[in-house]
């Protein structure tokens, strides 16, 4: 059985059922996970999922005592949903006193709920009825053993969850971004909160069968977090997370059916994690590479600004003195890679020309250098006038802000100086380009 066959649903009926069921779950969990994440409760699904265990075991015991069919799926799921709901309510009850924080409440409910379940399971094992085997599998997830009925139920639930999310998109978005605002415009925030938690519970309980207790959390959190890295807009984030959840589930199910020995739920989680890592590295705005690139560009720009200022000030004081890269670099404290890159960049951009080791500013380079020097002196004077700093400190403080603050802020500082200390502003004025120009 190859991966391609598995991905095209032609690797046999069972594999196709598993892949479709998991993908349906991934779709619903991804979409819903966005709202849960933005509501600041990413791990509530974790607490709820662990707290299903006592419900499952309790429903089994109840059925055994009442003489019903012990493996009835609806009964077990109802038990799971009931205790998970109690757990979610307990989290908010525990935090009400103000002594126990959200995180501690979730950890407590999670572990105590699970512990209660473990005890009930040990009671179940002593009951004189059959069918106990596989109860643990029920909680830990047996995606590979999913039946067509399970897959249909999950598909139905996923469709319902997606429908509700679409219908309630606006109010849910308002709830997630600004609860006070949502309440102020007359939205029923408590009911919406409960609806969101109810949907989360339904998907969590359904997911027990698809990917298992611990791995439900993965599909609730990871696709939503991945989508959050890729976009700032909720209208994009929700479908993206849903698609990512479905993709991870479909790829993971395919991989695990193609490579025997790979457990389905864990493989799906690892695929989702891989997508997250890819987004973490390559996301256009919030990704690590984009971040590193912005940092590198900033440090390069700062070094360029320093070099141009050094060149300008040298031209100001002694126009005839020759200038070499070593002077510029030493003044700006260039690192090795900046020493390699900056001269090329500055020449290619047409700010400087180099002839026989002598560096000279071009007219456009001179204009830029003048602007940069003026900006630096403006900030220096502003720091001295408004902040009362000594000249040396003002120089350092100016250097910290001038490269990153947008031009509007610089104009504001200039306006402030013009109002409060025009003499100082005039003193910092640099001569127009023509006077300081060096002839090579």
């Amino acid at each position: 059985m190859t991966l391609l066959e598995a991905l095209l649903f032609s690797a046999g009926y069972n594999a196709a059922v598993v892949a479709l069921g998991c993908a349906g779950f991934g779709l619903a969990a991804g979409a819903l996970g966005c709202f849960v994440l933005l509501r600041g409760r990413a791990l509530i699904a974790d607490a709820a999922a662990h707290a299903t265990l006592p419900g499952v075991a309790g429903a089994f015991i109840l059925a055994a005592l009442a003489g019903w069919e012990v493996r009835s799926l609806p009964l077990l799921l109802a038990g799971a949903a009931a205790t998970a709901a109690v757990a979610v309510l307990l989290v908010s009850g525990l935090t009400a006193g103000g002594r126990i924080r959200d995180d501690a409440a979730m950890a407590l409910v999670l572990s105590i709920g699970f512990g209660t379940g473990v005890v009930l399971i040990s009671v179940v094992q002593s009951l004189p009825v059959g069918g106990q085997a596989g109860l643990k599998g029920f909680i830990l997830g047996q995606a590979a053993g999913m039946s067509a009925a399970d897959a249909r139920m999950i598909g139905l639930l996923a469709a319902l969850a997606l429908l509700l999310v679409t219908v309630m998109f606006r109010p849910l978005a308002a709830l997630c971004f600004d609860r006070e605002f949502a309440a102020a415009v007359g939205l029923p925030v408590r009911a919406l909160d409960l609806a969101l938690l109810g949907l989360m519970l339904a998907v969590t309980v359904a997911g027990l069968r698809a990917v298992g207790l611990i791995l439900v959390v993965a599909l609730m959190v990871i696709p939503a977090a991945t989508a959050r890295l890729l976009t700032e807009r909720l209208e994009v984030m929700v479908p993206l997370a849903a698609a990512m959840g479905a993709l991870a589930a479909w790829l993971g199910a395919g991989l695990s059916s193609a490579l025997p020995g790979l457990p389905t739920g864990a493989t799906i989680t690892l695929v989702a994690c891989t997508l997250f890592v890819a987004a973490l590295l390559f996301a256009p705005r919030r990704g690590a590479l984009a971040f590193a690139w912005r940092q590198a560009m900033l440090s390069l720009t700062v070094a360029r600004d320093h070099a141009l200022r050094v060149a300008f000030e040298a031209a100001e004081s002694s126009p005839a003195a020759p200038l070499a890269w070593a002077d510029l670099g030493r003044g700006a404290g260039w690192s090795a890679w900046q020493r390699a890159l900056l001269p090329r960049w500055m020449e290619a951009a047409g700010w400087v020309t180099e002839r026989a080791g002598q560096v000279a500013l071009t007219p456009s380079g001179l204009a830029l250098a003048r602007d940069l020097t003026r900006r630096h002196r403006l900030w220096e004077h502003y720091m001295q006038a408004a902040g009362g700093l000594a000249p040396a400190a003002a120089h350092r403080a100016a250097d910290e802000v001038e490269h990153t603050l947008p031009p509007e802020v610089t104009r504001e500082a200039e306006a402030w100086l013009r109002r409060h200390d025009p003499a100082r502003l005039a003193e910092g004025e640099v001569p127009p380009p023509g006077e300081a120009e060096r002839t090579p």
Partner: protein
Amino acid sequence: MTEFLQLDLAPMLAATLACLVCGLVGNLLLLTRQSLLGDAISHSVLPGIVMGFWVSGSRAAAPLVAGAMLAAVAAALLIALVRRLTRLEPGAAMGVVFSGFFALGIVLIEVSGAHAVDLDVDCVLYGQLEALIWPAARGPGALLDAAALAEFPAEVTTLAVVLALTLLLLVLLWKELRLAAFDPDFAHAIGFAPRRLSLLVLVLVSVACVAAFWAVGSILVIAALVAPAAIARLLTNGYAAQFRLSAVAAVAMGAGGYWLAALAPGALGLGHGLNAAGMIAVLAGVLLAFAWLFGPFGRRGAARRATVAGHPAAAT
């Protein structure tokens, strides 16, 4: 008596020591609002344990503990990195990292062949308290008999060593930890390195988690970490009292939980023993409920604060 020594003494001691170690360390987590870190770490150690097993080829404690420690520290650092890079909320960063680690561990178990031996998810999730027996105890005299004591389960001895280490660190760093817990900004301002201290806390939590694993399993480690501290927090405002009360709560839930699990089946007429690790968590829940209902800072505390807030004069 002989039966108690052979079957119950070692697991009871292990449960008590595990709760005590975790409960004391848990105070540091609770006070710095990092309770879910226990959840994250206890899931994340799985791949480390499997790797340790894979590399060493045996269930000897040292490589497993080393692997678990490595995985725990790696997971915690990754969580911090993801948080810094993405500015996601801490819960989401933890969720991504620990579910990934746990899934990796499950896959490694299958791939490495550890499944064939008794290293499986069940043993990590539920612990194996009941497997700690001391067959060499042929009577009360065994407690003084060096040969019999040498066969005492190593898990218990390890836990005792870890407890001693934890107590030593707590005593040595008492003031520093207090400062870092209550006022990290001030600690930073007076030239302290809260970062190095929080790394130490992290390592301590990892050690406690790993040592307690074999006793109570990965999920119930979380109860042992958070419950004693939370119970104490509902009962007191003091820093030293917080640690004392949490130690009492930890001993009560560890020893009491084991005792209940061993005794309750007979009383209820069940033919089968109850899971002791689970019972410990249940007892923790009961103690927590009592503390919340009747403690000075639980439900009543909230009610009192509400009335104080209603009458501003009373507050001043």
